[in-house]
């Protein structure tokens, strides 16, 4: 550190001490429980925590606790709540003004957080040299400026009522520190520095990740001093480690039978239901699937409530829409497809396939032929559709799915922002191979509706537009909803505050033991 850097740091520390006596008091109070450690399961090899190119939920969980956004999601309700921005206002959903919290301290002595950090973070995502996959989230920004250190004004090219999701504590919305990024060089994904409740103390990519609480966190230090994440890939082993007392909290448990065992043994079953839906992507460039009656027939033919009840009553529930029921804009009256094999046969006959057809389903071989697929094959065969599985390994699957080389595939896109789902799946600009619209869906009426909904400032009109969009999408059915997924984080009974949000993330500041 240069001498000017050091004196800046001292000044910042001095200022923090003088300005916030409260912080000092709360730190010493928390000192009583100084050495609390929570052992948490981490289920895969960590892939790094740089918000610009982070991927996969387990890594996002670390970043969620290290970084902050201007806004964040309430763990219990999923509602948008203030984070680094104390308050905000907007004009016509186009000009957004954020008033930043004062006295927020960066981890590892990087001083006070200011508006310049916000501008730097967004510009970094927008810089092509960063090669961030999340660049498209911010390209709607026309200008951004910081009239003073505690105010950020962002002007959008087009009105966007969901902009508070864009600046939330997730991916592109996570605020980084320029000096820390530059100091880390090409190892930036392993040296995250944020303003969140925990900082990364050490990492052994083969076995563990250790987070320590950030004492200067603006809401006060977290109750638990150390979060010790142990990499345990196998679900059965993870369950045994919890039963053995080696682990306090399992990040995810995806085996139904293990959940049953843990439940019976009296462990606490922290969970969030319906966090995201798995959709069957119908490729509309296929000559058979381009007929809407065929797609509706598929939806009528499969009894998902029966399937989920039979195979995974804890982990899955039937899904009836591309949107999730907990979303504010969810439309209850959009068309639903309850199990009705007669109707399916009738639609197939009308479409000119009285004897059915062969449906090729591309999927990953990671789990082999799943029980769900066996059920689907059986249900579809009862209306004459022969479902043929094409199982390939995950990278191949991802590649073919992104290129649109399939008849049907599946996708699960976790999102709290309804626009994320609507635009990714249904907007013609996002048709694969460019984006996630693997169905190649392009309905001008729907496109106009979702664009209008995003721009609309009047709450009532906005709800109407979203309802209309869902009605069109569920009538055209480019995506057939199959199952809604539940996320479980079983723990010892003394672990409290494990609130899993709808992005399957836990804010460890709320967790105690």
């Amino acid at each position, binding site marked *: 550190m240069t001498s000017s850097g050091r004196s800046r740091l001292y000044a910042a520390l001095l200022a923090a001490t003088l300005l916030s006596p409260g912080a000092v008091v709360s730190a010493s109070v928390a000192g009583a429980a100084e050495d609390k450690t929570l052992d948490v*399961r981490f289920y895969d090899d960590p*892939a790094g925590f740089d918000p610009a190119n982070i991927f996969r939920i387990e890594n996002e969980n670390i970043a969620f606790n290290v970084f902050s956004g201007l806004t964040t999601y309430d763990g219990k309700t999923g509602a948008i709540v203030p984070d680094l921005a104390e308050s905000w206002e907007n004009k016509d959903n186009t000009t957004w003004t954020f008033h930043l919290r004062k006295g927020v301290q960066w981890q590892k002595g990087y001083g006070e957080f200011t508006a310049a950090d916000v501008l730097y973070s967004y510009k970094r995502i927008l810089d092509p040299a960063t090669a961030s996959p999340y660049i498209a989230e911010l390209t709607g920004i026309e200008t951004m400026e910081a009239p003073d250190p505690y105010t950020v004004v962002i002007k959008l090219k087009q009105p966007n009522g969901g902009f508070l999701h864009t600046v939330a504590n997730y991916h592109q919305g996570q605020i980084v520190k320029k000096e820390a990024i530059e100091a880390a060089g090409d190892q930036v994904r392993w040296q995250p520095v944020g303003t969140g409740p925990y900082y990364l103390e050490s990492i052994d990519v083969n076995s563990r990740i250790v987070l320590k609480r950030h004492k200067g966190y603006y809401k006060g230090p977290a109750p638990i001093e150390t979060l010790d994440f142990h990499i345990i890939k196998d679900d059965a*082993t993870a369950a*045994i480690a919890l039963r*053995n007392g080696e682990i306090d909290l399992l990040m995810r448990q995806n085996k139904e039978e293990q959940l049953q065992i843990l439940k019976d043994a009296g462990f606490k079953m922290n969970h969030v239901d319906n966090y995201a839906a798995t959709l069957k992507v119908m490729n509309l460039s296929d000559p058979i699937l381009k007929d809407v009656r065929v797609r509706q027939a598929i939806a009528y033919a499969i009894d998902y409530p029966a399937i989920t009840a039979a195979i995974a009553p804890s982990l899955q529930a039937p899904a009836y829409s591309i949107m999730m029921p907990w979303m504010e804009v969810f439309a209850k009256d959009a068309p639903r497809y309850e199990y009705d094999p007669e109707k399916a046969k009738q639609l197939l006959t009308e479409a000119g396939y009285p004897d059915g057809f062969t449906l090729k389903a591309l999927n990953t071989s990671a789990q082999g032929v799943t029980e769900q697929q066996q059920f689907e094959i059986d249900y579809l065969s009862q209306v004459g559709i022969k479902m043929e599985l094409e199982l390939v390994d995950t*990278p191949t699957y*991802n590649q073919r799915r*992104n290129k649109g080389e399939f008849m049907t595939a599946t996708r*699960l896109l976790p999102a709290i922002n309804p626009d994320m789902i609507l635009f990714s799946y249904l907007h013609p600009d996002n048709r694969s191979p460019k984006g996630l619209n693997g169905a190649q869906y392009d309905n001008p009426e729907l496109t106009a509706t979702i664009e209008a909904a995003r721009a609309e400032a009047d709450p009532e009109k906005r709800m109407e537009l979203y309802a209309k969009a869902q009605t069109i999408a569920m009538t055209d059915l480019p995506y057939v909803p199959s199952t809604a997924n539940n996320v479980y984080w079983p723990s010892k009974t003394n672990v409290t505050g494990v609130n899993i949000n709808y992005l399957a993330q836990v804010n460890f500041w709320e967790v105690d033991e």
Partner: protein
Amino acid sequence: MLVYSLKRFAQLFTTVLGVVTLVFFTMRMIPGDPISAIAGDNLSGEALDRMRSQMGLDAPLFVQYLNYLGHLATFDFGNTVTTKLPIIGLILGALPVTVSIAVGTIVLTVLISIPLGTLAAFTAHKGHRMLDNAITGVAMVLDLMPSFWTSLVCLLIFSLTLGWFPASGTVSIDDPAHLLRRIALPVLVLSMAQVATLARITRTSVLEVLSEDYVRTARSMGWSELRVLFRHALKNAALPIVTVIGLSFGNLLNGTVIVEFIFTLPGIGNLLVGGMNSRDYQMVQTLIVFYALIFVAINFATDLIYRVFDPRVQF
């Protein structure tokens, strides 16, 4: 001996170069690349293309190949493709774990299967089929049990019910006592399968020499059965046994994948599977070079050991 060593070295060089080239091109012929491996559900094709070009994955294949050879020549194994971690560090960190498991397994296997196989051969030779059949039968059952299943059963019994061994926890070569506790179950599981093969080979080879003239001669000199069996029969039956041990050591190094996964041991099997699944070209290439080197070294060592047992072997 010197000429022999030089010859073996030249052989090593061409083997490694061949392996490197083969792996380089086959890895790239498999559909999917490192970027499509991380794609998951929420990254678009456009976003992935951007990452691809930043990582130099869109350069012509031949240029990438020459580049790679250049780095290899200076022993620069590079970083993992997506996570930018130095590969050599990852491998050196993981190697002790896998080697400990492999060595432990070989030791346990040899301790169990050689006496067992010899005993089976001896009783078979004497015409007592019962013990022979029992040993061969048990060995076969052990051999046929899949290791992912025996692993879970061992975890349930020894870890959960009896509480003798932990199911998870950090593994470090700096703490040998803890390392032993962590690798005990994997070693047990792997040995079960190895015992079958080695006991069978031992039985066959010993049985074969038991009818040789020199064994009869030894016996006629009045030596005890045990001395005849272990000093004369077993020593002369050793060559095929040593060969199998050498081979199974090599196989163990990459056969630890499943137990490493289930017992959460950060070994090189884990690295290889992770590297394949994430299409981390650099990682897979480097690991294969390591494997090739290890195999060549084991073959070399096996050849040297031959001489100990059979002075007639010339180099």
